């Protein structure tokens, strides 16, 4: 055990001697959480939508739309201005409403709203919500116009009746509630989810860069010398791995602490979270050892590190929450340790879970770690004992 500790502490020392590493471990993850978090934590995170047109109908529709919280609305004077905003991507979507829209509807004629969509998928995602607001506010005018086609009564009279009826009836209300009884508007989502994703992504990626340390050890013949000492090969892999694990744990705990203090991220049950991190960091260290045992030089290891680190992160829900994955992709995601750790963290931070609740995920992660370490030891034995 003391041997493992001495190899591990030596590795930590080597790691912190390089100043660029310090930046990578300490400053960089915070910057990312800040950059992404600032997009979520903003109250004004709803997509920007612009509306051109005047009159009561437009006023009511805009008010309704803003009440949904799904878009933040900007009013502009002309449809040309609207077009510019959409073209320049200052807003994701613009709606141009003819000035006489409500009167036209009341008169039984159709009205054409021009929906200007910005490039990309953001515009189609918000389009439905925006149009429903307009449709909802057009109900009275729609009905007036329809009735006009059925009777010879004066338009004004019909309008008056409809207005009176609207005033008399109470509109349908929608009661939203979360399963379990919580208020959906109090959802502590956003930055927590981002922080979990970044925590896992960075911890894994950074531990993985340790692969180059193993390669260097191999190149300098240090590992071979260690083989010559009365130290078993498995112990060396565990020891080198422990170095990476130490670095990974250090960074993970650091990210947890700083994001909790700086951005108010809640990590749930702290002891359980630390155990979870410890196991996850062990998986990352195992992966680093495997890459270090298989790859021949630093540059190749760097390529693999970036590919594996970012790829697994993306696949495991570090960039897009797992809850938004399609069914198939959600199943595929389970091949990554990130997905399991992600799921466990959500259990802890969102549902107030404890260590017992995340035992299944911990078990899977531990299996990942053992398999990766064993593969690494096997590969390393092949490499080191060959002349």
């Amino acid at each position, binding site marked *: 055990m003391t041997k493992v500790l001495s190899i591990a502490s030596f590795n930590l020392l080597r790691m912190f001697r390089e100043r660029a590493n310090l930046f990578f471990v300490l400053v960089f993850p915070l910057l990312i959480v800040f950059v992404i978090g600032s997009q979520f934590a903003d109250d004004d995170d709803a997509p920007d939508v612009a509306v051109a047109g005047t009159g009561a109908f437009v006023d009511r529709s805009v008010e309704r739309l803003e009440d949904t919280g799904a878009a933040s609305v900007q009013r502009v004077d002309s449809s040309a201005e609207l077009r510019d905003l959409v073209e320049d991507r200052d807003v994701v979507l613009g709606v141009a409403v003819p000035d006489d829209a409500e009167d036209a509807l009341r008169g039984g004629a159709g009205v054409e709203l021009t929906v200007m969509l910005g490039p990309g998928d953001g515009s189609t995602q918000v389009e439905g919500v925006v149009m429903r607001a307009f449709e909802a506010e057009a109900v009275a005018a729609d009905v007036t116009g329809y009735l006009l086609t059925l009777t010879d009564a004066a338009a004004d009279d019909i309008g008056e009746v409809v207005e009176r009826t609207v005033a*008399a009836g109470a509109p349908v209300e929608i*009661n939203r509630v979360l399963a379990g009884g919580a208020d959906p508007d109090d959802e502590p989502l956003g930055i927590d989810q981002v922080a979990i994703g970044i925590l896992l992504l960075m911890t894994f990626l950074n531990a993985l860069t340790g692969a180059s340390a193993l390669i260097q050890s191999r190149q300098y013949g240090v590992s071979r010398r260690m083989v010559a000492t009365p130290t078993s090969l498995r112990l060396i892999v565990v020891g080198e791995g422990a170095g990476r694990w130490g670095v990974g744990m250090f960074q993970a705990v650091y990210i947890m602490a700083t994001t909790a203090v700086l951005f108010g991220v809640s990590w749930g049950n702290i002891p359980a979270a630390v155990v979870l991190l410890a196991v996850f960091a062990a998986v990352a260290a195992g992966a680093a050892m495997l890459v270090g045992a298989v790859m021949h030089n630093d540059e190749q290891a760097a390529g693999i590190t970036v590919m594996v680190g970012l790829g697994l992160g993306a696949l495991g829900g570090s960039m897009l929450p797992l809850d938004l994955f399609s069914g198939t992709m959600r199943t595929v995601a389970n091949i990554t340790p990130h997905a399991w750790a992600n799921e466990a963290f959500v259990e802890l931070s969102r549902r107030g879970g404890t260590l017992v609740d995340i035992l299944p995920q911990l078990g899977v992660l531990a299996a990942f770690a053992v398999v990766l370490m064993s593969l690494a030891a096997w590969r390393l034995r092949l490499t080191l004992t060959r002349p």
Partner: protein
Amino acid sequence: MSAVVTITAKDLKERLRDKSFFLLGILTPLVLAFVLDLVMGDLGEGQLEVDIAVVDADGSVVSSQLRAGIAGLDGEGGLEVTVLDADADPDAVIDADGYDAVIVIPDDFGDRVTADGGSAPELGLVENPDRPVQAGVAESIVVGFTTNIERARLLARAADELGLDVAPVPPATGIELDRVWPGGEGLDTGARMMAGMAVMFVFFTVQFGVTTLLDEKKSGTLTRLLAAPIRRDSITAAKGAVSFLLGVLATMILMVTGTLLMGADWGPWLGVSALVVSAVLTAVALMAIVAGIAKTSEGASAAQAIIAVGLAMLGGSWFPVSGEGLMGLLAKMTPHYWFLNGLEDLTDATTWTVVGRPVLAMAVIAVVAGVPAAVLLRRRLRP
């Protein structure tokens, strides 16, 4: 000039012989773009899978129409709708079957809708706390049906008051939509991811060229280059040229692969080339600054990796960024932002000249970074 060509050719031979160029410059971005497209592509194409259940505790005419209307959406655009028993417990079924949301029609719904006055009809929407986005889709669907109900209800009452007979099927809204894309439809998610990865990884690729200057120092060959009858500037020029050529090569391969494998339509290739060339130039200039400051090739690689990922994140390689606010300002200082926006414009454009503004912006970044880079690198030319 011939010295620049000779050194460039030698460096290219070395780099292409080394597998890391293909690994980091081409394979890695391809794999990542593919993974990101798998993960995010579905969402982008409106294929978010939403699993909704309906509980009709009412059984009235109104509620049956509503229930049938919602059930009719089953199978459309990633929606899955299940009609549950009238006495199902929404909390329990969400927990057991993992529905994203359960729409509950209470037992007095029909009565309240048809009643004259009285209290407001209510619809329940029980949301799965783990699935806020999907629940949002369910809510949007309920809102749409509510508008229809309101229209039908208003029509029935007003007609009644006017003494008119109306058909039980409510009219549709008189609002028609004219959907236009003034700035074009832009890139789809897969193509955007591909472009984002391409511009991010060009920063990794160009460092192969720039950091060879540090390698030459380590291998001692810099001394020989300095002793040779060639101008010293031709050494730095060659290093820049190598970076540039490798960068353009890797990026163009990725862009072509995007067309072949993902069916990406980038627009006129002349415009794509202009964007690629200027993005690579900025990448060379920025990475050359790092190589000019760093002491060892390893130190430079580490710093360059940080800068590459950091700029990519700011500039929109990972997720789209708007050009507004502080973040927008930062984004506009990265070549990534201009490269990606240039591509968005280009894809629907008829002429390649639409990339003029992004190309100009990148040229400015390249010059601002390139001048100090050249000065710093020149100071590296010591035996």
